[in-house]
């Protein structure tokens, strides 16, 4: 209590509250920052992450919109071109498919196509759904589509600390930033300093040190990978877990350095793998290490199917601590018989506070 009082600026904050605090702080210091989107001002407040903003800053700066994702994206782009800093929020990333034209043909290209005369300091916040029957159209994490196209930054903070720091960086960035928030992360918390701070894009974080294998995990998969890291300790495998935090820009050097040591690279993404972030990371690492430093590589991610609604199938759709641990084991001990972690430990690693409905 007294230690908390001493260092009041270091509280435990939930993921959504961290985003809220970042937004609030940036709106307080910069009148150009505003929030726009469906349902940003209702009592659910985007899983609480916009709670209180409309009361504090008024409806002109927390703008509820009609169901018009395409136009509203264009509106946000136009406002950004005029010097404002919109934060456009989508309750599901799948809905970005309605505004790809504005995001890719306009936001990503404007600065280049107009040779620097215009820029688009726009944050696009998107929540990636999972479980409780989210199904095919409420579960997609489409970051690789944005990684593919020059001109958009992409961040996917895996914890509350990064969420706050990345949000402040995103708001201050002069480019469009797609900000990816996996739904389950809203049930996680972390120590979050009270003062505004930034997490710099393009710095891969080593979240767990290790010697035998490098696991690069993206977004919520960082949590799963950390649990897998515990599980493989049982069989004396020391796994290094890296969190790139930002996918554009991507700090590949830290990944390459780690893999040079461990000789094994496993990428675990919260998305499909084909042409995904994992394909990119594998390809980049292998290109950069060259033929002389040959390494073992593997990718995990969504099963390459549409996401099913029923939990009976959905449970096989995502990588889990168990499946990640098993894959890591296979890579480290390719010739030993297959191994799966102790059922009880695996179960514990599996647990999540979340339960449906959304």
């Amino acid at each position, binding site marked *: 209590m007294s230690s908390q009082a001493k260092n009041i600026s270091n509280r435990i904050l939930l993921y959504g509250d961290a985003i809220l605090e970042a937004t609030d702080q940036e709106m307080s210091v910069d009148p150009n920052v505003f929030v726009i989107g469906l*349902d940003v001002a*209702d009592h659910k407040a985007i899983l609480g992450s916009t709670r209180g903003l409309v009361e504090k800053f008024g409806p002109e700066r927390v703008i509820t919109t009609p169901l018009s994702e395409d136009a509203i994206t264009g509106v946000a782009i136009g406002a950004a071109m005029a010097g404002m800093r919109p934060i456009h929020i989508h309750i599901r990333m799948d809905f970005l498919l309605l505004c790809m034209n504005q995001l890719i043909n306009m936001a990503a290209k404007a600065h280049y196509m107009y040779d620097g005369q215009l820029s688009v300091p726009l944050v696009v916040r998107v929540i990636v759904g999972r479980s409780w029957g989210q199904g095919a159209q409420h579960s997609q994490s489409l970051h690789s589509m944005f990684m593919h196209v020059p001109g958009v930054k992409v961040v996917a903070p895996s914890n509350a600390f990064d969420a706050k720091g990345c949000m402040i960086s995103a708001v201050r960035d002069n480019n469009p930033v797609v900000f990816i928030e996996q739904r389950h992360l809203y049930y996680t918390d972390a120590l979050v300093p009270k003062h505004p701070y930034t997490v710099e894009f393009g710095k891969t974080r080593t979240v767990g040190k290790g010697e035998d294998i490098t696991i690069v995990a993206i977004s919520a998969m960082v949590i799963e990978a950390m649990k897998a890291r515990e599980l493989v300790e049982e069989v004396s495998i020391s796994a290094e877990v890296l969190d790139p935090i930002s996918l554009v820009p991507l700090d590949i050097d830290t990944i390459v350095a780690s893999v040079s040591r461990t000789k094994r690279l496993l990428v675990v993404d919260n998305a499909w793998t084909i042409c995904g972030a994992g394909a990119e990371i594998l390809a980049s690492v292998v290109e950069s290490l060259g033929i002389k430093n040959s390494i073992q590589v593997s990718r995990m991610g969504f099963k390459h199917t549409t996401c099913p609604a029923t939990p009976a199938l959905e449970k096989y759709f995502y990588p889990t601590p168990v499946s990640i641990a098993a894959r890591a084991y296979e890579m480290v001990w390719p010739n030993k018989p297959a191994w799966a972690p102790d059922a009880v430990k695996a179960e514990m690693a599996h647990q999540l506070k979340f339960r449906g409905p959304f």
Partner: protein
Amino acid sequence: MQDESLEGIYRSLRLIRRTEEEISKIYPTDKIKSPVHLSIGQEFIAVGITSVLNDDDIVSGTYRGHAAYMAAGGSLNKMMAELFGKADGCAGGKGGSMHLVDMENHVLGCSAVVGTTIPVAVGYALATKNKGSDQIVVCFFGDGATEEGVFFESLNFASLLKLPVLFVCENNGLAIHAPIESRWVTKALCERVETFDIYTSQVADGNIFTLRDSANKMVENIRVGKGPGFIECMAYRWREHVGPNEDFDQGYRDRAELRKWVENDQMEKVGEMLDEQMRLSIDASIEDDIVAAIEYAEASNWPDPNMLDKNVFAG
């Protein structure tokens, strides 16, 4: 499509209401593995419209699709099994509540992305017209869906080609919690749609027979090739946007509004027109059907894990 006798209409209204009430009772047990968007209070729209259709007409609904699905004659057992995430569900558990489908009974697949089904329904109508069939397609959607650009694109194209499609906007004045005033600059939806040379009609009295009259005229026009029709039917969502409960304690709307609609509950009104005995026997048979559907869902197996990668591509 659906029995257009008073009994038939009542049966349908009652079936939908009672099924959803049971769904909302079961929901806290977590047996239903899917978000549910209930139609309670809005059933009269789906029932009124489908009661003027032919058996082979096509119905397209939304994620709030239980009513349209049941009114069109979709299998109750399979719907319940779908909500339970079971192998015998109408989509083998892969769709859940938001993606109902029953092509045997002419229910096109529902979608969880607002507005997405509108042009798809128009395309289905293009095909039925091209095949020279006299099937029409009814496309249900909410007031929120009319804010999506694709709605206007679809109107223009459907009218250009005089396609046999009846657009039905279920205007419950809300999109999640956003009141229509925050989303529509005017209420002139019908006038707007008319500028596409589409017959329109607004049904504001919440009366299923007024709606049927409108729908009947529209459907007649559509079948003789006069092109699409559009009905805006006012309604009220009695429960929360998603989930089994009421939410009048959330402060975004007033229970007084609900009361007006409850007083005008079409299920009760139509029920009152029936002979008491008849009504009781319908009610009883519906309870049996629902119990049977729940038993069917409970008894159904979970989908086999190897179904995960089945049907990604069609053969």
